[in-house]
């Protein structure tokens, strides 16, 4: 059993007790410790800036041409914080409970409580940086309610909350670059982790403009590389989002937790053709006023406006009368899939459902709906050439967020001492389903408020001073990275990388997506293995070893093929349904997820044993001392 090193004491005392007793590094010694932060999204930027402010020597890597492009930028709806500004009874405990329930009781109590505890500080910090959150006419901060909760705790900056929070963190980071505490390497991709005597001691990175491979020694390494939902190819993620850094760290000994738990977001644009590269997310906030329906007739040919009320199936309102269209994401997505699979889907490919605003426009007026959702309706029209004021949007579920990631303990340290994972790259806080507006929060909490305390606790026991980058371990890791790239280029086959990525995505969508079965998962593993063989014998990577996007993509897809197999193992061995993980064999008579707390109240953490070999299954028992897991009903 894995030990998460959770501090003793009452839930509300744990984090303050930890902070009071964690070891410190004296201000004079901090600059002698070098910390490598990989990734400059919200978690990476906020952490690198905070560590720089403390006086550590930070080296920070981004594969983008500037730190501000990381995909945190695309989060639309908001960030949760229990400020109780609305006097509606919000407390840290209530936010903790909503999050742990939303995660279907598959997250660690102490971590989730700490997340809620840090949330109020985050809003203070962001406002101090100049993040332009929405304001009431009084000048005080505005907020709104969001999927699955009954209080207003979501702070937002129009539909661009992620962008504004990221720019705040990016600017704090650039301030430290100017101050000389942070050395920023843009257009650098992580190739491998350097481990010396069991401890993380540096990274091998590649300059993507020149192809030069570099060694960077560090006393601690932090992976803040985000999620890997792009493994499905069609997803809400950016094109270059990847699992490569966490996967390569996994192959160096870091355990990978709950890899199959991917949030499939219910409100995205459906696929319209084979060429499609992306399924754009439409903010969940639309469900506050939009009603979701499909026709009651399988062979419906009429336009949506011609279908009378009595012939429409508002299936979320029908199945979940108390939450209706605001049911949590996993439940809404699954309900959409159920209707689409049963033949009631709409649109030319019959792969979507309607999200209809006509009732809201009738009740509130066009102007009000324009004010609330104007930017989203504009975006929808730009992509589809359809006005959602006149006819319902067509939406469909798409891969969105990785609840799984590197296993970390309470200090966010992986199973490799000195290697940390923060933000979406770790598995820690969301259990089997993430609540809306909690991802920005987690990235910021980890980066601003948690890791700056926990990393020094480790460094305090380390020897300061330069790291020897001529050590054999650096040479071995560099050679490993170099030969891997060379191998991909030398295959000289006939098929471009994207073909393999799309094929992998299809396998995972069908068999390890919204619903899974033993039979399907076993087939998926076999199919991925055979796809992987094809990849390694027929891949074509044109171009040289310098600036070469195809080479970057090939490296990512090589890793994705291995991650995909592990996802299927993970889903196969979890013989229950919980949150986003729905096993067809384990459902209630009315088709809801049947969780099994007796046998599966644990986190699966996988250990790499080598290519083509079965991974070793470790478990971290989840102990519920302060809440009692209940049946998660939204009916």
């Amino acid at each position: 059993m894995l030990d998460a090193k959770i501090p003793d004491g009452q839930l509300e005392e744990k984090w303050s007790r930890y902070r009071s007793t964690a070891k410190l590094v004296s201000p004079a010694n901090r600059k002698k410790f070098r910390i490598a932060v990989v990734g400059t999204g919200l978690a990476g930027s906020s952490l690198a800036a905070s560590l720089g402010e403390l006086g550590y020597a930070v080296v920070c890597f981004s594969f983008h041409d500037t730190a501000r492009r990381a995909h945190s930028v695309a989060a639309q709806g908001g960030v949760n914080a229990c400020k109780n500004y609305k006097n509606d009874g919000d407390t840290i405990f209530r936010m903790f409970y909503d999050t742990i329930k939303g995660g279907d009781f598959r997250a660690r109590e102490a971590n989730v409580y700490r997340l809620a505890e840090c949330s109020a500080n985050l809003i203070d910090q962001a406002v101090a940086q100049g993040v332009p959150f929405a304001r009431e006419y009084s000048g005080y901060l505005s907020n709104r309610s969001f999927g699955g909760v009954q209080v207003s705790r979501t702070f937002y900056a129009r539909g661009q909350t992620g962008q504004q929070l990221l720019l705040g963190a990016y600017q704090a980071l650039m301030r430290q670059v100017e101050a000389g505490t942070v050395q920023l390497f843009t257009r650098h991709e992580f190739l491998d982790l350097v481990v010396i005597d069991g401890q993380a001691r540096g990274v091998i990175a590649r300059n993507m403009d020149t192809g030069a491979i570099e060694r960077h020694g560090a006393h601690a390494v932090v992976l803040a590389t985000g999620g890997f939902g792009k493994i499905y190819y069609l997803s809400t993620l950016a094109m270059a989002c990847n699992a490569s850094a966490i996967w390569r760290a996994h192959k160096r000994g870091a355990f990978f937790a709950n890899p199959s738990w991917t949030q499939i977001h219910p409100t995205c644009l459906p696929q319209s053709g084979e060429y499609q590269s992306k399924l754009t997310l439409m903010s969940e906030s639309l469900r506050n006023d939009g009603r979701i329906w499909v026709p009651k007739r399988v062979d419906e040919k009429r336009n949506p406006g011609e279908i009378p009320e009595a012939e429409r199936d508002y299936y979320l309102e029908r199945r979940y009368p108390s939450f209706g269209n605001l049911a949590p994401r996993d439940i809404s997505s699954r309900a959409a899939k159920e209707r689409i699979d049963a033949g009631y889907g709409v649109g030319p490919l019959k792969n979507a459902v309607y999200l209809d605003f006509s009732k809201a426009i009738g009740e509130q007026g066009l102007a009000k709906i324009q004010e609330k959702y104007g930017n989203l309706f504009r975006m929808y029209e730009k992509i589809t050439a359809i006005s959602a004021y006149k006819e319902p949007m067509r939406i469909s579920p798409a891969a969105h967020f990785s609840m799984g990631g590197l296993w970390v303990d309470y200090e966010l340290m992986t199973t490799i001492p000195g290697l940390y994972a923060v933000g979406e790259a770790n598995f820690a806080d969301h259990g089997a389903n993430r609540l809306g507006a909690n991802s920005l929060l987690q990235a910021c909490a980890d980066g601003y408020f948690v890791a700056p305390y926990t990393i020094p606790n480790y460094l305090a026991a380390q020897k300061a001073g330069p790291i020897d980058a001529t050590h054999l371990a650096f040479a071995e890791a560099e050679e490993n990275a170099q030969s891997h790239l060379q191998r991909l280029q030398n295959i000289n086959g006939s098929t471009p990388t994207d073909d393999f990525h799309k094929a992998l995505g299809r396998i995972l969508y069908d068999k390890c997506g919204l619903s899974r079965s033993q039979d399907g998962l076993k087939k998926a593993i076999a199919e991925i293995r055979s796809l992987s063989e094809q990849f390694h014998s027929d891949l074509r990577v044109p171009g040289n070893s310098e600036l070469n996007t195809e080479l970057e993509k090939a490296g990512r897809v090589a890793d994705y093929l291995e991650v995909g197999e592990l996802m299927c193992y993970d889903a196969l061995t979890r013989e229950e349904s919980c949150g986003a993980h729905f096993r067809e064999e384990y459902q209630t008579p009315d088709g809801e997820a049947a969780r099994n707390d007796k046998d599966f109240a644990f986190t699966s953490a996988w250990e790499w044993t080598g290519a083509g070999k079965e991974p070793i299954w470790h478990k971290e028992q989840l102990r519920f001392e302060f809440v009692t897991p209940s049946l998660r009903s939204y009916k």
Partner: protein
Amino acid sequence: MQVYLKVWRQQTKASRGHFADYSIADVSPDMSFLEMLDLLNDRLIRQGERPIEFDHDCREGICGQCGVMINGRAHGPLPNTTTCQLHMRTFADGSTIYVEPFRADAFPIKCDLKVDRSAFDRIIQVGGYVSASTGEAPEANSIPIGHATAEAAFDAAACIGCGACVATCKNSSGALFTAAKIVHLALLPQGKIEARQRVVRMVAQMDREGFGHCSNTEACQVECPQEISVLHIARMNWEYNRALLS
């Protein structure tokens, strides 16, 4: 639909570039412009040719990574749209489309359609922030900000840093980008304390990077995907003059 492309190819910063001709017969009108380039690249790879390098990432108009000149216009023929949100239905069947990188002295070409926009980072680096270290923040509602002020600050803060303003400007001026950040922070009480040194330092850095001067043609505002107003440039100039006088 059928399109004929003339795409700028240039292997490295130092090498000589040229227009290469491509023709694609089976473009779907519902494809985004970048998906059309994906399709072309797929063909090039299968034919054993080097695919076209171009910048892109989120493909939903917010990361600011994509951006090319299409028929001489930054991000293509539609106003206030990123390249990733431009769809092929905008073009007539049988069109000839010129595709070039954003051109500016401050944005050197890296390869084909990819350019180096790190000059923007260096402008932010010298002062595009409020110096609020983690932990220093007061309670958020202790800084009330009027609704109108917050909305105006947001309008400026919405900049995605794509560089279309520079690419479309006949002087390659970086004024709209720089002004957007200066005004975002100058409007807010949190940003006022450092406002004077911020504007002086950022404008000086903008000049050092080789951006041209603003001559008020207002072309930038037409192409800006976030519809950032040129009035911010006037406000920047006002802030700048005020800083010099005090």
